[in-house]
């Protein structure tokens, strides 16, 4: 079954064969290195050590942030 996740404020559809099971697999699909990402799912922070065990579900709102240049 296809799945829709709201990623950084935008809906993204994953086709059934590509729906990521875990947060780690989502980051891999997005080409985002795990060690560089801070993740919030439905407003709750996920500790990096839990990325591989955190399950992704249809309809979740996921924020992916990382450090950028700033003053």
């Amino acid at each position, binding site marked *: 079954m296809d799945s829709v996740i709201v990623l950084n404020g935008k809906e993204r559809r994953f086709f059934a064969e590509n729906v990521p099971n875990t947060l780690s697999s989502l980051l891999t699909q997005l080409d985002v290195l795990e060690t560089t*990402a801070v993740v*919030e799912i439905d407003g709750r922070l996920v500790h990096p050590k839990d990325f591989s065990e955190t399950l992704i579900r249809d309809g979740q709102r996921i924020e992916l942030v990382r*450090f950028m*240049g700033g*003053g």
Partner: protein
Amino acid sequence: MDMLTLAGRTFRSRLLLGTGKFDSNETMTRALDASGAEIITVALRRVDLDNPQDDLLSSIDQKSYLLLPNTSGARDAEEAIRLSRMARIATGIEWVKLEVTPDPYYLLPDPVETLKAAKILVDEGFVVLPYINADPILSLKLQDAGTATVMPLGSPIGSNQGLHTRASLRIILEQARVPVIVDAGLGLPSHASEAMEMGADAVLVNTAIATAKDPLGMARAFKHGVIAGRLAFLGGPRAPHLQASSSSPLTGFLREE
């Protein structure tokens, strides 16, 4: 040696550097090195999913610098706290430069929301370095709340206007029980130097270095400006006065008195 102590950690450099606005990560890392800075600020933003491998931290030797995440972009206490928690969970770093700037045009800090966020973050174990207007009463309230520093502005962020807040800064410096870091608006090494001459413990610079034609040269210039200002402060400058005071003896002239 004259060291800067912040929240129990000591630093040789009294120049903190921001990492924004550099035209490349390579220029940034070279400017960081040239500045001698040991504390550098970083921001948290959404990952650009069209450019997912763009990673600032891969360019920075984290053993050489203390990363100081900021809460830039936060419009109220709640957003600032959210960003602070994100930064801590990602890095384990408990230090945060607290910025709450509801107005994007002047980027002036909101004193009410900043104090509110500071109290909560201190309770949660953060080392809080709050960016504030040069408000002596707010400075005292933040110190009482347990912040590690106060960071009054010289003029609006990135404006290069220099120290427009001298009179209030003097009061803040006189009353401070925590280190005072003058942040924002410093456009020239002489601005940084003046802040240090007045007794600031450190300064934070970003735009003036990152957007200079030669960021490396400007980083060096700020490094020396900060050192000169600090040495001048320690040297005990004398107050200015109207009347001249001869540097040479006023006796033994080649004329009849």
